[in-house]
């Protein structure tokens, strides 16, 4: 009794990949996924504008007189009026916003009230430092969370799962400044393995830079690692226990490792992408305090200094940068999702 190898006439069993031939790029460009991407990009614009309005509005709530505060109590009325005129503070809010927006679109974020330097110049290098911090934290936390979550979900309820879940809920309850200080106490004060402060630029020494970044990155990544681990493990277990296609996969007789990786993880990774994108806003918010503790010359530190010196032009620029990065992260996650998930890539849903 042989299983018939039925091959309908006309379909030669040559390389079946051939019929993928009609240009992949062309298909993607014409796909509903592309249209969705376009829609998402268009939606991001009003969000960024909304954020900038909100920032502007909040910072202009300053009670009392900004110019007076900048100049100090001894300033004369003429000095104050002159400064107000110089800063445009005598004009109505919307005019000032539109002026600012017009300049911002051309890349001019104004001049610092304190250092009198162009804000874009101030931002330049600091953006690289914060970017490195966020990038490393991101790599470390995801790089650890994925294997840990997979191992935990491989045998839910077992020792490894329980311990990792306990660690992660604990880690989620440690504020990053608390963690930062404990790390300093342990690794810088007690063990003297890593420096507590003293940033080494990447251009000076790669090893030295990584050494100086170790504790800040650890302080940011650990809670993030805990968060990703919990999310991914939960989603994997939900899939494994609740999804019919998992039963199909198991009914084929393939091993649990393959079920986990090829089926559950593949599907969970889409949720993970979204969560990571949404989370990036919080992540970069967290850099403010960590940069402060470890004296890293990043955007967060710049912003905090500006807050303390009431340099609202700089504060405004920093908030805008943070917000734009958060919106962009979200957008990238959405786009990645659209490119990777076949259900969106090829329409439907």
């Amino acid at each position: 009794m042989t299983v018939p190898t039925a091959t309908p006439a006309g379909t030669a069993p040559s390389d079946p990949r051939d019929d993928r031939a009609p240009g992949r790029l062309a298909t993607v460009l014409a796909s509903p996924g592309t249209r969705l991407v376009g829609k998402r990009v268009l939606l991001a614009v009003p969000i960024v504008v909304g954020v900038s309005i909100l920032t502007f509005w909040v910072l202009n709530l300053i009670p009392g007189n900004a110019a007076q505060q900048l100049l100090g109590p001894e300033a004369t009325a003429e000095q104050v009026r002159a400064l107000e005129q110089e800063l445009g503070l005598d004009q109505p809010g919307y005019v000032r916003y539109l002026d600012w927006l017009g300049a911002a679109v051309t890349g001019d974020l104004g001049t610092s009230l304190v250092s009198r330097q162009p804000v874009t110049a101030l931002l330049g290098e600091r953006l690289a430092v914060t970017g490195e911090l966020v990038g490393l934290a991101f790599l470390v936390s995801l790089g650890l969370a994925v294997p840990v979550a997979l191992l935990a979900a491989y045998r839910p309820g077992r020792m490894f799962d329980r311990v990792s879940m306990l660690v992660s809920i604990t880690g989620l309850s440690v504020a990053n400044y608390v963690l930062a200080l404990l790390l300093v106490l342990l690794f810088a004060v007690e063990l003297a393995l890593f420096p507590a402060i003293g940033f080494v630029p990447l251009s000076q020494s790669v090893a030295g830079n990584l050494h100086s970044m170790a504790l800040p990155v650890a302080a940011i990544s650990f809670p993030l690692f805990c968060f990703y681990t919990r999310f991914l493990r939960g989603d994997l277990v939900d899939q494994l226990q609740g999804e019919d296609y998992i039963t199909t996969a198991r009914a084929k007789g393939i091993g649990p490792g393959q079920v986990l990786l090829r089926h559950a993880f593949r599907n969970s990774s889409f949720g993970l992408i979204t969560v990571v994108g949404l989370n990036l806003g919080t992540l970069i918010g967290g850099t403010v305090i960590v940069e402060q503790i470890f004296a890293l010359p990043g955007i967060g530190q710049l912003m905090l200094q500006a807050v303390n010196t009431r340099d609202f032009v700089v504060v405004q620029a920093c908030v805008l940068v943070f917000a734009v990065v958060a919106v962009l992260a979200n957008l990238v996650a959405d786009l990645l999702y659209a490119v990777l998930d076949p259900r969106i890539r090829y329409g439907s849903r």
Partner: protein
Amino acid sequence: MSELASESSNTAPAQRRPSASEGVRCELASEPVAEREDVLATATAAAPPPRRDPDRTEPLLVVDDLRIRFVGRGRTVHAVNGLSYSLAPGRTLAIIGESGSGKSVAARALMGLLPPTARVSGSARFDGTEMVGLSEREARRHRGADIAMVFQDPARSLNPTMRIGAQIAEAVRAHSDLPKAAAHRRAVELLSLVHLPAPQRRFHEYPHQLSGGMRQRVMIAIALAGEPRLLVADEATTALDVTTQAQIMELLLELQQRLGTAIVLISHDLGLAASYADDVVVMYAGRVVERARTADLFAHVRMPYTGALLGAIPRLEREPHSLLPVVPGQPPDLSALPRGCPFRPRCSSATDRCAEDPPLQEHEPGHWWACWHPLPDARPDAPAKEGV
């Protein structure tokens, strides 16, 4: 293409258990029903497997006093309570019953696919091998290769993010060390075997790009990938529209003819069983309440529950898992089953005697039922016999 393992094992003397229980002795094989002959005529590609006298063939599957309960937070659900049946190679058995009667649970137990909260006892021997109590690793060797399953909802049963070709190839490679390219070719073959149009192109598509019927064909291709000897179709057509239902059933029967696969057909639908099955088992609250060859059962329904199901038949358009009960009343709470006949609260023939468990007995040759007061036999020459 490879030889089906069943060829040899059909003739092999499978060690048969000393038939301690009534269930094992009952042999449910019968001649194919009329419907079958047409299908046979349309199956052209391969000669039908030589049919042996069914009564002398060793059964492929013997389920004996299978019991399954789920233990949870202070609540135990007795989903299956002493299920027994047997199935000969190449034949079709229908398991019929309301939602929650334990059909799926019993089928999944054969493959070791129940969640860890399930406690299985009793016996289910596949070709002489005990399937109850196998370790995960041992059970995995049989999944797909010996027993395969087609599930109810093809939309949810295929991985939405994997190309269907890859999903079939994965099943092919699960039990062979075919290289990737060969598994790929085999997957395309399987797609044409299940009559999916343009298999080369479909190979690269995703499940959401197919219609419901096409998806179910893909599910069947996956199930056949390991060349199983037993195919369990768990309400495989319930989620499909009527026309597609018939097409899928025809496909299953055609494949059965070609490949000699035995089929367990799980359904709510007595009509389906009447048209396609050789034998029928009617389940209620996790037990068998009646079983017989298909023709016998429909000619002479004896158990009141089967009768009620039959009364509710002409509703092919019924929604799958519809909220409206087919039979008036509610199925019993499986976590607190009272003594006695489980159908008692809904039965119009119930008497005080029904507070005692009616045993499942072979009251007529090949016709088993569990009831104290069976329905009168419609046959003119029927012996006016009351189940005692």
